């Protein structure tokens, strides 16, 4: 396997990646949380705010990941993804819809030539603990059905047991299984226990060639936190300085308000810079956030809030 890996230019060999983990700088929790809190106090100009709200919509991965998802639910969500506000053509489409593999064909049918991507979770989401061949098959199947992006999970079982090489090689194999589809790797930071470990997991996934690192499955109690996201962004910034490759960052799990979305954009701007302020490099996984963004845009333009019934729920 190792020989295959070394040929891929954006990836590290397993042994060099494991060695790289030894050089990941430590993170001081108090300092990190203070920095995140101070950035959350920045206030942005009104014009910038409208631009930020528009960008936030373009960065949304509109998500439903329930066992009860049906084709009907997906059709409705796809319509919302393309035209978040049917009365206002100036509102952009979201970046992607995010769903389970079995529903990919439904979404692909709905979103053909709309520019909205289809993202599928795969690889025994959310635990990542199925047998590897099955997980890779799941990825390949989703891609064959037309998924543009694949969200997998880090094998926390291997990672937390110190089997870094295994965790690394599984991501490498997943990337390979993706083919041309973009790979996002979910670290599930709420299970990692400390910022040091979050930072190490970020480096491991980036070295394995993932296109995005993502914080949470949304399936456990702890979802997105500002310091957790800042920790991942600092890792992505340093990875760029070391390798020249820009890895995207996705936050998910509990981002429900426009205000939160803007706080994350402030972190992106201050940590990673303007190059990351695009849907190609920053995503927000969310469902209810979208309507709050619409509501805030309407409020910025008109000066008044509209009631929730004026925004469609799909």
């Amino acid at each position, binding site marked *: 396997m190792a020989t295959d890996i070394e040929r891929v230019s954006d990836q590290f060999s397993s042994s060099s990646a494991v060695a790289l983990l030894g050089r990941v*700088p430590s993170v001081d929790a108090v300092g990190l949380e203070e920095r995140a809190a101070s950035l959350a106090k*920045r206030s942005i100009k009104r014009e910038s705010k409208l631009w930020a709200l528009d960008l936030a919509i373009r960065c949304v991965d509109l998500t439903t990941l329930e066992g009860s998802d049906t084709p009907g639910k997906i059709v409705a969500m796809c319509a919302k993804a393309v035209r978040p506000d049917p009365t206002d053509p100036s509102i952009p489409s979201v970046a992607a819809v995010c769903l389970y593999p079995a529903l990919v064909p439904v979404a692909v049918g709905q979103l053909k030539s709309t520019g909205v991507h289809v993202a599928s979770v795969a690889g025994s989401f959310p635990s990542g603990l199925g047998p590897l061949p099955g997980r890779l098959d799941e990825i390949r199947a989703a891609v064959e059905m037309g998924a543009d992006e694949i969200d997998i999970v880090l094998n926390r079982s291997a990672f937390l047991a110190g089997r870094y090489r295994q965790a690394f090689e599984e991501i490498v194999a997943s990337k390979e299984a993706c083919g041309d589809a973009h790979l996002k790797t979910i670290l599930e930071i709420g299970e990692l226990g400390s910022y040091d470990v979050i930072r190490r997991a970020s480096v491991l996934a980036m070295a394995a060639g993932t296109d995005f690192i993502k914080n949470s499955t949304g399936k456990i109690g702890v979802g997105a936190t500002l310091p957790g996201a800042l920790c991942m962004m600092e890792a992505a910034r340093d990875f760029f300085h070391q390798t020249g490759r820009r890895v995207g960052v996705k936050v998910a799990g509990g981002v429900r308000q426009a205000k939160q979305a803007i706080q994350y954009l402030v972190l992106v701007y201050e940590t990673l810079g303007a190059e990351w302020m695009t849907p190609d490099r920053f995503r927000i996984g969310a469902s209810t956030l979208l309507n709050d963004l619409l509501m805030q845009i309407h409020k910025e333009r008109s000066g008044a809030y509209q009631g929730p019934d004026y925004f469609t729920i799909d």
Partner: protein
Amino acid sequence: MGDEIERRDKGAVTATVPWEYAAAPESKEIVRIQDRYGLFIEGRFVDPLSGRTFETINPATEETLSVVSEAGPEDVDLAVRAAEKAWESSWRDLPGRERAKYLYRIARSLQERSREFAVLESLNGGKPIKESRDVDLPLAAAHFFYYAGWADKLAYAFPNREPRPLGVAGQVIPWNFPILMAAWKLAPALATGNTAVLKPAETTPLTALLLAEVIQEADLPPGVVNIVTGAGETGAALVNHPGVAKVAFTGSTEVGKIIRRAIAGTGKRLTLELGGKAANIVFEDAPIDQAIEGIVNGIYFNQGHVCCAGSRLLVQESVFEPVLDKLKERLGTLRVGDPLDKNTDVGAINSAAQLSRIKELVESGIQEGAEIYQPECHLPERGFWFCPTLFTGVSQSHRIAREEIFGPVLSILTFRTPEEALEKANNTPYGLSAGVWTEKGSRILWMTQRLRAGVIWANTFNRFDPSSPFGGYKESGFGREGGLHGLEPYLDLVPR
């Protein structure tokens, strides 16, 4: 292994996004600045006998804010006599729990009016509103609360000693933390049963005068606190007044030496909190991204007008490059400008005189061969401003590594071993503070046992608490403020 991650061409095409932070100025309306201020003597504002006044300005705009009285020797004499009278007639014999009530009252007023104080502090001193709002005012109130708690427990603080107040404390404070320094001085003095004559710095008298209003409202017996404004001569008249039993001074080492000489042999008690040239020491195993924040906070906090500022950065040579790269990048995101804007990180330099001193020392750094770096920086046209600056290639013999600049200027040196770091850190006439950044707990302890500095921070910087004693070694002064230790300088401890 290093080969695989060698730096590639960053090839960054700098994208531009319409991302601007809104000017979010704190409203000035909350503060009512009077056209003219008298001296606060015996509970009232009185016109100066000297007949002299001076203007106080906003250093960010150079606009005049108000006209303040200049206390001459005759005014200082009145103030000291008022303090003596108050001490003898009431304050000295008031039970501790009664003194505490007044202090709690002042503390609560400071909290209630903290927005007003914060805006005035930023207007008069140039410091960013986020600092005066989030640091200076909460700490000033905390100091009064803390020492209010000691007022009725002094007998327990010093077992087998009878604590007795000294009399009138003459207190001279600097311009970098005007209201906070007033709190540091007044709270322990009053808690221990002394009365006080306070002289604020000539460039920043306004919050002390607002504090005088708070003191009036708190119904403090007249004369317990007197506030005389003025410059060096006023301060000299105060410390040399025979009625003063205890002198407390925070300011430059130069003036500290003059004071110590002046009061030698008089029997007056003295504490001095003077300059510093602190080493902020970053080891290779430090949490680098947080250390960067700590370095920035250590030297650019309050425009570097901090006696305990981490003005000498000692970086282990093996991480010098990443630290420097990150520091430069971070400097580029610092926002310099309107102190009242809550997005501002670095405000205005306090005075023209201070600005020219900073410029002079920076020039000497360039002349002596150190390499200067400043980020792109748009400074307002009026007012006193200086762009955040760092120097690399600095050696211990450079003036910028030895003299206190008291501005947003960082000197970076490197070291190879902990021993070398320690030697360089201690190789200064000052000894106020130091910072150690490492993940290794044993190394923190090893360093702190050997660093000759009054305050040592580990994996943080510029962190204050009223319960923690603060003060210096060597030319940074003597005596401690804060904590139990901060009571002692105001007490005669008589063996029982």
